[in-house]
């Protein structure tokens, strides 16, 4: 063991050096990114007039039409009832997933393959005497009559030519693409970390970490020491399991989202909403006297309390709200950029642009790998910060300035 201790220290030092290097790279990459984003905003803007007049129509393969990159991008980003792999329309290859609906007549279950890849509200699935159609990956009760596009929906067009659906929809508890990926990520996380836990039990604690352990142990100690302990203080041990779970859940799903056929779970607002609500609940149920006093009895003249107290109350919710938006927007934006860059090939309808597209898409992908870690870190760090400010013993103004600085740093 005496030989082990210095090795461990060296490893930690390397890790801190690495993270500090990443910070400098990050600044450089951000500048590059801004330049490229500006450069490529022109082609994407230029593609907008090419959008077809009526996007909603029966797919017709005989007619050659320009590719709607916006549509493609959103198809990749949004949730779906089946796991699409490749192909289009009726030739598409996708993994069918269970559709679970809470209708007026109770629960209805069927596989998404019963829609036959239809997302235009044309193919009706009838169960328990109820008819359903899938329109833009949202399930509605089918109308008796078809509209002018052939969909069994009651739609009206507004003055901008956009279709509004007036059909009722059942509560949708389907195991969608995102839910499936979440289950997979949970299985992966449980397998990884229980096997690591077993490794600790088997090898004892006197030996150096090996294999998976040596990769995850620095991350675990990083979350425990540099996120939890720094922001929360001496009561941090209680919150470390939650922070670790949040960190690895976001990290794993960020990474899965980067795989081309993977689902965009962390870029889905429902997912980030749930995590933020957990943070909101944990922060507020652990809030101590000082925390509540800061909200309801602020250090300010009583005359401005009517203004200050509502602001503080709103502040309880804006902090997790910002968490929700930050993760969702960062991941979604990354995906949109990658798809837009690849989409250039289809917008210009030439192969010659492909080296440029691929080069920049690769660049953004590498950046996204960094963002995957960074966003997991920021979400966890800010959660720890909010918990820390709720359980802090002191009630000094200086501490709040420090918090603000930390938040400001995290934003850059």
């Amino acid at each position, binding site marked *: 063991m*005496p030989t082990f201790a210095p090795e461990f220290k060296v490893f930690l030092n390397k890790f801190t050096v690495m993270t500090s290097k990443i910070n400098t790279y990050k600044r450089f990459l951000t500048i590059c990114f801004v330049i490229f984003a500006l450069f490529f905003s022109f082609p994407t803007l230029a593609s907008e007039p090419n959008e077809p007049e009526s996007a909603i129509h029966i797919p017709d393969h005989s007619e050659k039409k320009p590719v709607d990159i916006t549509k493609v991008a959103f198809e990749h980003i949004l949730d779906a009832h089946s796991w699409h792999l490749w192909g289009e329309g009726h030739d598409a290859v996708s993994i069918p997933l269970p559709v679970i609906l809470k209708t007026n007549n109770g629960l209805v279950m069927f596989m998404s393959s019963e829609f036959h890849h239809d997302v235009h509200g044309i193919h009706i699935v009838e169960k328990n005497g109820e008819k359903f159609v899938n329109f833009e990956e949202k399930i509605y009760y089918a109308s008796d009559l078809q509209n002018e596009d052939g969909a069994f929906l009651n739609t009206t067009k507004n003055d901008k030519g956009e279709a509004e659906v007036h059909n009722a929809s059942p509560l949708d508890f389907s195991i969608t693409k995102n839910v499936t990926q979440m289950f997979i990520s949970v299985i992966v996380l449980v397998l990884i970390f229980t096997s690591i836990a077993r490794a*600790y039990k088997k090898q004892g604690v006197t030996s150096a970490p090996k294999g998976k352990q040596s990769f995850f142990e620095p991350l675990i100690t990083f979350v425990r020491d540099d996120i939890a302990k720094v922001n929360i203080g001496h009561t941090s041990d209680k919150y470390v399991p939650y922070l670790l779970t949040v960190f690895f859940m976001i990290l794993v799903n960020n990474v899965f989202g980067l795989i081309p056929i993977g689902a965009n779970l962390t870029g889905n607002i429902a997912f980030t909403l*749930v995590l933020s609500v957990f943070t909101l609940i944990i922060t507020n149920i652990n809030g101590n006297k000082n925390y509540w006093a800061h909200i309801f009895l602020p250090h300010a003249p009583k005359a401005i309390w009517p203004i200050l107290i509502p602001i503080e109350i709103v502040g309880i919710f804006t902090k997790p709200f910002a968490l929700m938006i930050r993760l969702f927007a960062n991941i979604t934006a990354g995906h949109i950029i990658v798809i837009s860059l690849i989409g250039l090939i289809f917008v210009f309808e030439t192969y010659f642009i492909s080296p440029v597209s691929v080069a920049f898409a690769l660049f953004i992908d590498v950046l996204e790998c960094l963002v995957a870690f960074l966003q997991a870190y920021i979400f966890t760090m800010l959660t720890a910060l909010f918990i820390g400010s709720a359980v802090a013993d002191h009630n000094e103004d200086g501490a709040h300035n420090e918090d603000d600085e930390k938040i400001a740093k995290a934003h850059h």
Partner: protein
Amino acid sequence: MNSLFIAASLIEPAVGLIFWTTITFILLLVILGKFAWKPILTAIKTREKSIETALKSAESALNDMRELRANNEKIMAEARNERDILIKEARETKDAIINEAKSKAQKDADRILASAREQIINEKNAAVTELKNQVATLSIEIAEKILRSELSSDEKQKALVNNLMKDVNLN
């Protein structure tokens, strides 16, 4: 498909996903908390503690060693001092013994010499005394013989008395 519709669905949280995420996340939190984080964090903490104690004990062992070495040096120095003192004392004792022996020998010699001298004087005195006695005896005998011859006639007796009287005056 119009972009406004999809943009709206982008920021509209789906009930189903919220439901599944909540359930899954709580389950994940419970499972990992019990079967992963608890053993892992305990193990890491235990190891950190054991490293800490190992480092501390190594340091204390080093300190002990240093103390021991200092002690040893001290003992060595003391021993060296003691040796020096012993040697010095021995030398002093030796000198003292030699000196004492010398002075004693001197005294003895002196005493022997003195007694010898005394004896010589005594012997001499005795010899002188004996000599004197013998001379006296001899003189008496001679005197007797002389007297006997001298006193054989009156004239001779008278001459002797005169002679003796002369001798007595000379003594």
